[in-house]
Every structure is written in C-alpha cells, then in structure tokens.
C-alpha cells in the first residue's frame, strides 16, 4: 500500500471515479435492499452516500412472487421477491424525482424479462436525471426460458452491446455468481462495452421447514445474501478484477467498513451495502466513516489507492 503522508495532515480523500462519474465516497446501496431511498431516508442522510442504487425497475409494474418471499438462514437470508416494482412511469415520477433532491449519485437498476423490455426502460431513462444504469441480468428469482441472460457469455455480451447502443448513461452490468467461471462473464460484459460491472448478485439457495416438510419460500428457491456469502463475493471480485480493465463495484454481505476495505483490496473501485441494511438501517454511513478511519489509521491519502492493492 502506498502512502504519501497526506493522510497524516488532512482528511483522506474518499472520492472514487467510475466511467467519468465521480462519487463522493465508494459506498453505495445494493439494489433491492434500499428501495428507492425513501424508506431509509429517515435513518440515513442520503446526502452522505456515494450513490443510491435503486430497486430494479421494469417497463411496466411487476407483481413479484407469492409469499413467503423471505427467510433467514445462518449468517444470511434468502429472498425471492421476484422484482416487484411499480414500472418505469411511476418510478420516474415519484422515485427518481425524490432522489434528485439529494446530493448523491443515482444509479437506476433496470430489469426485464426480454431484451425488448430492458431496452424500453433504458430508452425511457435517456433524458432522466440518472447518473448511471445498472442492468440486472442476474436475478435468480426471475427467469425467461431456461437460463438468465447473465449465465451465458454470448447472451451477456450481446445484451450489453444492445443496451450500450441506446443508453445515454454509463452502463454497469450486474453479474450473477451462479456461473462456473465469473472471469468469463466479466470479460463478456467488457467485450459488450460495459462501462463497469457489479458483483455479486445473490447465490441461489433453499430452505426447507423439516417439521412441516415444506419449502420455506413460496418460490422454493431464493437468493442468498448477507455475511454468509462474503468470502465467495470477495473471491469473485478478485477473479473479475484480474480478467477485466473496467471498474468493479463489489458487494455481497458487507457488514462493516473492514468488509468494504476487503472488497476494495480485492479489486473493487466501489462497494455496495445490501442485506445488512436490514440489520442496521444506519449501516451505510458507519461504513463510510469507518473507511475514512481505516485510511487515516494506515496513512493512506485516498480511498482509490485501496483498489486492487493486494492483486
């Protein structure tokens, strides 16, 4: 780790840059765990955040899956919400309008069943105050056909290319960990022209109630998140970082500033706090402050110096 002594005298520089967008610090919210910021704005001064990443939005409202949609497991949770969302019209009118009041970057997570649906949302967002788009090609609870876009490198590359052709904002492709070779997927997104990648989405899991002999989730399977998945996520960020040159947003079970630093050392430029928002609604701000303290303690002048420092 480099050190030039600046941190000794002043506050460390927490800002990071991704695809020409400057974030005041590397801490974002993971899509789906923070709504559109409104619900948590009573707990977190949204102005403090590097970015708010919104819950996935589709071209039309989605009902999502039947309940139960969530279950707790050791060190984590399963969810099969099924991307319930109000659709792009309400999202723009209400959620995006709400977020523009704050001095934070807004990353809109986009979901769809088909290529056309993704493209429609991306197009609708072209003239909207979103700083970046994150494309959810990796939700384990929503599938069209046998495979998700994010599980086949050719599909992933193609959809990235098509989105990039019409997107007016930089595009982050969110990768699923439910693949054999994450590096191949990272390269496919990069080859398609992605400006950045984010990983990991949830790991497909299951819980069975042995007394009732029933699946706990109505959807049977669900996405595992929380501290239980962090080592897998750190490993995948590290593998992806070696495979591509585009920036990486790392996530998966971050519960502290130390966890966030670990992701950055593995190669992430920024990080996102997800399921642990449910454990502590004020966690994002604690992670931001803790990164600053870590930098000061280690006499590191800027957060960006952490990225990939162990590679």
């Amino acid at each position, binding site marked *: 780790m480099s050190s030039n002594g600046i941190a000794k005298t002043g506050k460390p520089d927490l800002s990071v840059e991704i695809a020409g967008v400057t974030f005041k610090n590397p801490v974002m919210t993971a899509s789906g765990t923070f709504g559109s910021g409104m619900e948590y704005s*009573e707990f977190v001064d949204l102005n403090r955040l590097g970015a708010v990443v919104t819950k996935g939005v589709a071209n039309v409202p989605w009902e999502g899956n039947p309940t139960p949609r969530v279950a707790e497991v050791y060190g984590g949770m399963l969810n099969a919400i099924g991307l319930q969302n109000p659709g792009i019209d309400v999202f723009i009118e209400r959620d995006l309008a709400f977020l523009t009041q704050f001095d934070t970057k807004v990353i809109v997570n986009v979901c769809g069943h088909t290529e056309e649906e993704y493209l429609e949302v991306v197009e609708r967002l072209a003239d909207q105050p979103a700083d970046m788009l994150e494309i959810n090609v990796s939700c384990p609870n929503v599938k069209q056909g046998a495979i998700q876009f994010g599980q086949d490198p050719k599909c992933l590359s193609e959809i990235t290319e098509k989105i990039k052709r019409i997107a007016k904002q930089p595009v982050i492709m969110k990768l699923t960990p439910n693949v054999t070779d994450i590096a191949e997927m990272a390269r496919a997104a990069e080859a398609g022209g992605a400006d950045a990648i984010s990983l990991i989405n949830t790991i497909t899991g299951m819980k069975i109630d042995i007394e009732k002999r029933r699946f706990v989730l109505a959807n049977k399977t669900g996405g595992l998140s929380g501290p239980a998945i962090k080592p897998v996520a750190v490993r995948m960020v590290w593998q992806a970082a070696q495979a591509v040159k585009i920036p990486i947003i790392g996530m998966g079970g971050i519960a502290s500033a130390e966890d966030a630093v670990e992701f950055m050392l593995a190669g992430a430029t920024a990080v996102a706090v997800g399921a642990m928002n449910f454990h502590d609604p004020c966690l994002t701000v604690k992670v931001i402050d803790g990164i600053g303290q870590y930098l000061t303690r280690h006499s590191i002048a800027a957060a960006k110096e952490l990225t990939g420092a162990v590679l």
Partner: protein
Amino acid sequence: MKKKTTMTVTDIRFLAEGICSMTLKYPENAAPEEVRPGQFAGLYPNDPSKLLPRPISICRFDPEKKELRFVFRTAGAGTLSLAAQKTGDTVDMLGLLGNGYDIEKLAGKRVLLLGGGIGIPPMLELAAALFKEPGTDVTAAMGYRDRDMFLTEELRRYARLLIATEDGSAGTKGNVLDAVRANAVEADVVCACGPMPMLRAVKRFAREAGIPAYLSLEERMACGVGACLGCVTKTAKVDGHSHVRNARICTEGPVFDAEEVEIG
C-alpha cells in the same frame, strides 16, 4: 435521523408454554413515541448469526415507566434467543413500525376484539386504549389451544372477556367465533389478529353481519420499513407503492380493512 434503540430488559418470563413476556425499557434520555395499538417493533436477537429483526406486536406501552411489553411465541431460534435474555440485558429495537388500529373508527362503538393464539397480545393494548374512550363497549373473545392461557387477567381489566379453547378445557370449545356465537355477542365493528384461517373466518363473519372488520396480518419480514417488499398481502385494489395489488404489511399494515385485502 432515526436509528435502532438499545432497550433494557426489565422483566422477562414465560406466561404459558412457549409464550414469553418481555418488558423493555427505553434509555433514560429517550422520548418514546406514542404507541398506536396494533403497531409492532423489530427486535434483534443478540446472536450474530441472525440478521433480521423479529416483528413482534406491542402488547402494552407504559409511558410513565417508558416501557414496552412484548408477548411472543418462541417459534424458532431467533425468538428463543430473545426469550433467553435476562433482566438487565439489552435488546436492539427497530421502530415502532406499522400503522396500528384507527381508534377514531372504533370509539363510541360496540367493538369486538378477536385474538387467536399469539394474535392475543396486541389486543391488550387495543382494549386498554378503547377503555379510555367514552361510550365504547368492548368484548374480547380470545382463542387458546387449551387452559394454559395467558393475559386473561389483564384483558378482564379493560373488556368483557370470552374464552375459547380448542380442546374445550376452558370457555367455549372451539374457536373465537364459536365463543362469539355461543354468547350472542352483538358488535358494530370487529378487530382481529390471529392465524390466517381465523382471519378468513372473521372476514366472512363480519361480511355476513354487515359490519367492518380490521385485520392485523402477519408475514415473514426482512427490513420492516417498506424497502424490501418481502411482506406483502394481496389487495383488492392497486396498491399505492408498486401499483400492482400487493400492499406492504410492515408499512401499509399490519392492520387492514378486511375488504381491502384478498386473503382467500
């Protein structure tokens, strides 16, 4: 900004098999929010393997002592861990959460409170609130598995209490509606909390009687604040949040007008 509140256990004991009563005191400097009966809080088990707050309804609020009482069933590892706390231990709490019952719609009426099993505790706070409303006549019909009952004494302070037990070992044999019918209770409005089959029956009962029913629903929850969309209920009309027909129980609820929710 809001944050979790670190509460201190001032009393903890079992009232019946698997039914734990825990009283939590706010910190000295805290100004507790006024409780609307039917609201709940998220209680965090002191166990790092457990992330999520347990949504537990408020059984009683004592503004003088700055204490909240929770009565819950030890249904799994999380609630068992909460029940294992000792006096003087701390428990982190999220909330108050949820909407609660609208007292204005109940005041001055003949109100029938129905509680089944672990749906009974929130009815105590509601009965106590209605007790203060002039001209309000409260009958509470509570359903237990057997004579191993809880909160009956407290309920009697604020309401005419009817009891139903599944095995007939106390009160009317059967469910709460059997007790209501056996005692020919007449009411202008019903408030109910309990298992889903009971709530479905209450909805039918109220419809046949031509009176409104307010149901407190339960679902597995994660965030408790309306962000994750984990705990939804089907609604008759398009909901205000997602514009589908799924209202968030933690935020728009847990208390709903029975006619607004499609509970089958």
